C-alpha cells in the first residue's frame, strides 16, 4: 500500500470515525442516564441530513443547512422524548429498544413522504484540499474531525464544569439518589435527550455532503454506531470517542486492504475487546439503575 493511499485512508477513517462519534455519543448518554437504547437517534441523523439538503437548496449555504438540521433534530428529539420516552423509562430495556426502533421506522416513512425515496446530493461546502505528506486531502474532512473534537471538548466541559452536567454524571451512577437531593431528574432526561438528538442531527448534516442522502441512511450505519457504543463502554464519552476512531480506521483501512473487511473487521475487533474487557474500553461496572 502506498503512503498516499494510507494517508488518505487514515483521513477518511478519522472523518467517518468523527461522524460515528457524533451519532454514538447520544446513544451512549441516553443509555448511561436513562437506561434506554435510543435507536431513534438514527432518525435524527437522517433528519439532520435532509434538513441540510433542503436548507442548502433554499439558502445556497451548506453550513446554514447543517445548523438548521441540528436545531430541527433537537426539536424532533424533544417531541419524541416528551410524547413517547417519558412514558416508558420505567419499562425494561428491550421495551425502549423496540419502541425506539418503531420511532425510527415510522420516522423513515415520514421522511419518504416529504422527500421521496430518491437519494439526494448535498454539495461539499469547501472544495479546497491541502497537502499532507504528499497526499491531497479534502479540507472538509479535516473540518469534520475538528468539529468532532470541539464537540468532545464541549461535552466534557458541560459534564465536568456545569452543575447540570455534574447532575447528569451523578444520574448515570444512581438516578434515585439524585432525585432524593431534590433534583428533577425528568428534566435532566429531557436535556440529555435533546443534546443527543441535536448531535445526531449534526452528524447527519456533516455527513450529508460526503454521501447521498437517502431515507434509510440511518439503518445503514446502525451496526457501526452500536459497535462504537459497545466497544467504548456504555455511558463513557471518552470511550465513545476512542472507539469511534478505532471503528472508523478499521472500516477505512480494512476496505483498502480487502473490501469485505470494511464490514467484517469492526465486528471482529468488537468481539476481541469484549473478550478482554466485557464492559468495553471505558465502561464502568458501577452502572446500575
Amino acid at each position, binding site marked *: 500500500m502506498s503512503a498516499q493511499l494510507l494517508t488518505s485512508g487514515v483521513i477518511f477513517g478519522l472523518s467517518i470515525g468523527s461522524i460515528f462519534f457524533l451519532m454514538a455519543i447520544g446513544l451512549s448518554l441516553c443509555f448511561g442516564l436513562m437506561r434506554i437504547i435510543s435507536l431513534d437517534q438514527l432518525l435524527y441523523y437522517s433528519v439532520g441530513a435532509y434538513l441540510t439538503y433542503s436548507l442548502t437548496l433554499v439558502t445556497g449555504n451548506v453550513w446554514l443547512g447543517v445548523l438548521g438540521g441540528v436545531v430541527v433534530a433537537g426539536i424532533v428529539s424533544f417531541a419524541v422524548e416528551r410524547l413517547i420516552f417519558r412514558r416508558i423509562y420505567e419499562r425494561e430495556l428491550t421495551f425502549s429498544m423496540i419502541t425506539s426502533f418503531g420511532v425510527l421506522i415510522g420516522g423513515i416513512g415520514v421522511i419518504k413522504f416529504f422527500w421521496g425515496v430518491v437519494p439526494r446530493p448535498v454539495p461539499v461546502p469547501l472544495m479546497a484540499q491541502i497537502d499532507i505528506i504528499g497526499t491531497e486531502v479534502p479540507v472538509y474532512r479535516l473540518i469534520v474531525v475538528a468539529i468532532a473534537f470541539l464537540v468532545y471538548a464541549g461535552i466534557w466541559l458541560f459534564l465536568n464544569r456545569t452543575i447540570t452536567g455534574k447532575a447528569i*454524571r451523578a444520574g448515570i451512577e444512581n438516578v434515585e439518589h439524585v432525585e432524593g437531593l*431534590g*433534583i*428533577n431528574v425528568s428534566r435532566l432526561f429531557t436535556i440529555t435527550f435533546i443534546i443527543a438528538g441535536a448531535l445526531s442531527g449534526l452528524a447527519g448534516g456533516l455527513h450529508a455532503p460526503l454521501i447521498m442522502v437517502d431515507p434509510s441512511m440511518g439503518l445503514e450505519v446502525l451496526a457501526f454506531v452500536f459497535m462504537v457504543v459497545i466497544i467504548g463502554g456504555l455511558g463513557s464519552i471518552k470511550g465513545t470517542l476512542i472507539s469511534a476512531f478505532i471503528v472508523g480506521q478499521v472500516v477505512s483501512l480494512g476496505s483498502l486492504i480487502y473490501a469485505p473487511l470494511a464490514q467484517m473487521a469492526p465486528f471482529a475487533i468488537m468481539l476481541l475487546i469484549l473478550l478482554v474487557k466485557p464492559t468495553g474500553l471505558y465502561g464502568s461496572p458501577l452502572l446500575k439503575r
Partner: protein
Amino acid sequence: MPPLDGMATGTGELLAVTGLNVSYGESKVLFDVNLHIGANEIVACVGRNGAGKSTLLKSIAGFLKLNSGTVTCNRVNLVGRMSYDIAKMGIKYVPQDKKVFSDLTVQENLELGSYATKDYNWDRVTDYFPKLKALMERKAGFLSGGERQMLMIARALLGHPKLLLIDEPTEGLAPSIVSHLREVFRELNKAAALVIVEQNLPLVCAIANRVYALKEGRIVAELADAASIRADVCEKYL
C-alpha cells in the same frame, strides 16, 4: 413547591402516616401502617430484615407508589408528589446503601445537594463532620464507609431539611464513628425531626424519643417512654 413553613418549629405533629399499604409488584410489603412523628422528635424503627422498615421510609420520601393510605406533613398531602418535590419540601431521605456519587469529588457531591436547595453553606454541614473538610477534592469513590455515610448525611443537610429519614446509618461502621454519629444526630435534632431505621439497639436507646417495631410489614409495638425504650425490650422485635 414552597417549603413547609413552620415545620419542626413547634412541638406538634409533623408527619402523619395513616393506613399505608405498599407492594412491590404482587408482593405486599406494608400492611395498614399508621404512625406519626412530632416536630423535633427522634423516632426509631426497628425490626428484622424484610420487616418493611426501608420500604416505609422510601414510601414517605415518595420513591414508591402507595396502594392506599395517606402521608401528610404539617397537614400537606405528600401522596402523588414526586420524590424530588418532597425533598425540596424539606423531607430528605438518606439511603442505606452508602452509595455516594463515586465519580464526583466530595465537593461536587455537596454541590449537588445545593443544586435544588440553593444552600451553598458547605461549612455549616461539614462542621458536623470536620473530616470531610480535608477531603473536599477527593473522589467520593475513594472514601471509606464511614466517610461515605458522613457525606450522604452532610449532602442531605443542605437546604435545612425539617425531617431526615435515615436508613441504617451505622451498618458496618466502626464504633468510634457510630459514637460520632450519635452526637451528630442529637445535634441535628435541635433543628429537625429524625426517623432512623436502625438495628443498633444501644444507639436507638440512647437517642430515640419513640420507637416503632415492625414485623412482617405491620407495626406491632410503639415504645413511647424511656422506661420501655430498652435494649432488652427492643430486642424482642429483631
